[in-house]
């Protein structure tokens, strides 16, 4: 990691304990966090000042206590209309915060008790309900700015913990410090979830055991009709709900694999035919259903998917299997099915392992890409020469400038891509949003398909203009495209587009070695670049005329797919 992340708190109450808690919680996951607190109860001015901050913080946390907002909840002059006006002005100010900073805004905590009459008549909502109105406005505001803002759902934490663990009545009144340590720890945890999504590599694969994990009982012994998976019976309902959670995670682009000691046909019989089985064969990106030890199987799955073990989460009911994986591969996250099976549904969600800030179309289609990969491998075995195989794939490619709608996917590529990644710069959505309006930056995405289907947006290149020199700041390709010459397609076509806007004499490029990107160590030389002296990593230069790379004739360039 290295660089320190600055979090600026804008608040109208004593939020310093929350800052301390975030710092503490960030340490064990390898993030160095620095917290800053602006003046007390000066929300508008604090937010406005961020526009001219010399070093904009990576994260801004805006957290407001309704008790003290807009003149104060207990003032005789309190009026909902005024509160809403003030809050909307604040949101307008937040809108103007430069996109370099990502803004987290906390929801308001509704009153734990209501006063009679219990259903206040619309439109004059009671004070008890002000939080609901404000939260609706806030959620709507954030939903429309997914690249800029995130929700810190204090309302939900309060609902989970209850009044006694949420509110500190004593220090709330004495020090304007309204929250109990339990609440503060949970709120810090929510901030950490956002930091994890933005700055740490995500888990990409969920590897599941079958018997007593996807269903109750052992299918090899009781047969498909004897397993427990009926949503109208206990414990079947617990497994059924777990499967439904697995499906929701698959929707976010996590690859689902099976790793089970079983006879393969019995497992497929359940997935293909069982009336209550939610997880079907078309959702499975890879599988090892055999009697080989699970450590070997897991390793093979990682190789097959071309993903590292540290991106995997392994779920099994057997303590012995869990222990085996923990000891062999400490980098794999292991979740054991709880002994109390009613605690099983919700296990994956509570782990926060599969949090995503946004979900792209590529995420939804990912499993198909990997399944098509199996078909491609089959085709490859029929070709003796690589060129013939690639030609037979009938690849089509589109290279287009990154638009604001592409920012989430482009950032995701920066965060996820490890192998074919020349500089491994982990740009966030905020960073890329800033680049969009920078006249000295040009960004292009590669979208491709072949006869087996779409490959989605899988390559990104970012050029920067420094004086008269054009520099390749970032160049990356999703690992499943390595060896397909699509990198050449992206490089050549994007350079052609850049040359239309900028005068390009010399191109500079860099290679920053990491533990995982050795595969591209020689790329720039292969493209015709020559090494030059560099401050960090390896730097290369090449006059445009001297490039030894051309758009591959086996790939058809299309205006759109």
């Amino acid at each position, binding site marked *: 990691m290295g660089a320190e992340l600055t979090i600026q708190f804008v608040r109208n109450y004593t939020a310093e*304990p929350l800052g*301390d808690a975030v710092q503490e919680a960030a340490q064990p996951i390898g993030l160095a966090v620095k917290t800053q607190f602006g003046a007390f109860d000066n929300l508008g001015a604090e937010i406005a000042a961020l526009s001219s901050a010399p070093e904009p913080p990576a994260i801004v946390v805006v957290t407001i206590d309704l008790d003290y907002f807009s003149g104060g909840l207990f003032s005789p002059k309190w009026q909902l209309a005024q509160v809403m006006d003030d809050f909307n002005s604040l949101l307008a100010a937040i809108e103007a915060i430069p996109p370099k900073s990502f803004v987290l805004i906390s929801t308001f905590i509704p009153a734990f008790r209501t006063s009679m009459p219990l259903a206040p008549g619309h439109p004059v909502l009671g004070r008890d309900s002000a939080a609901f109105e404000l939260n609706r406005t806030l959620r709507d505001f954030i939903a429309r700015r997914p690249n800029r803002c995130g929700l810190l759902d204090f309302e939900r934490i309060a609902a989970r913990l209850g009044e006694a663990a949420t509110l500190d009545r004593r220090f709330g009144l004495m*020090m304007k*410090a309204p929250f109990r*340590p339990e609440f503060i720890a949970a709120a810090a945890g929510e901030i950490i979830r956002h930091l994890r999504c933005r700055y740490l590599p995500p888990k990409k694969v969920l590897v599941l055991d079958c018997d007593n994990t996807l269903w109750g009982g052992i299918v090899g012994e009781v047969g498909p009709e004897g397993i427990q998976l009926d949503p109208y019976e206990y414990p079947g309902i617990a497994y059924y709900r777990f499967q439904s959670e697995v499906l929701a995670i698959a929707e976010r682009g996590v690859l689902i694999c099976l790793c089970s000691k079983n006879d393969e046909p019995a497992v497929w019989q359940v997935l293909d035919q069982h009336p209550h089985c939610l997880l079907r064969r078309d959702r499975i990106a890879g599988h090892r259903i055999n009697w080989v030890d699970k450590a070997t199987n897991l390793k093979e799955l990682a190789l097959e998917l071309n993903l590292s073990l540290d991106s995997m989460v392994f779920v099994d009911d057997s303590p012995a299997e869990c222990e085996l994986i923990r000891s062999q591969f400490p980098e794999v996250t292991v979740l054991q099915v709880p002994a109390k099976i009613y605690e099983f549904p919700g296990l994956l969600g509570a782990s926060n392992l599969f949090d995503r800030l946004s979900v792209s179309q590529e995420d939804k289609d990912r499993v198909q890409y990997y399944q098509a990969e199996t078909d491609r491998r089959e085709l490859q075995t029929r070709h003796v020469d690589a060129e013939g195989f690639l030609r037979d794939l009938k690849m089509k490619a589109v290279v287009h400038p990154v638009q604001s709608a592409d920012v989430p996917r482009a950032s995701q590529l920066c965060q996820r891509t490890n192998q074919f990644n020349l500089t491994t710069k982990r740009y966030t959505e905020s960073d890329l949003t800033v680049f969009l309006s920078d006249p000295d930056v040009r960004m292009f995405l590669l979208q491709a398909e072949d006869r087996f289907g779409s490959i989605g947006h899988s390559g990104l290149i970012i050029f920067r203009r420094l004086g008269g020199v054009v520099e390749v700041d970032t160049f990356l390709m999703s690992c499943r495209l390595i060896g397909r010459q699509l990198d050449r397609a992206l490089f050549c076509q994007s350079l052609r587009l850049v040359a239309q806007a900028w005068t390009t004499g010399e191109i500079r490029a860099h290679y920053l070695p990491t533990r995982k990107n050795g595969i591209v160590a020689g790329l720039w030389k292969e493209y015709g670049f020559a090494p030059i002296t560099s401050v960090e990593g390896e730097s290369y230069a090449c006059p445009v005329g001297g490039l030894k790379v051309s758009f591959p004739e086996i790939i058809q360039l299309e205006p759109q797919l």
Partner: protein
Amino acid sequence: MTREEIKTRARAALARGLKVDPQSITDNASQLDLGEWDSVRHMNVVLALENDFGIEFADAELPTLTSLPLLVAAIERHTTA
């Protein structure tokens, strides 16, 4: 609980609340000579001590708990009562 035991535990809680090394807290440490001991951290200290000793200070006591000896004396009052 002896006074020494209380002092050891109070020192640890004080260090935790102030986020400093327990070694740096002398027997007579007070708010005057510990820069970290501001009003926000004082709240942490109070919460840490109450949690650790299972006691609750009275409102009026809070502003008077300004040194390690005063904290120890207050805890003694609550734990021997």
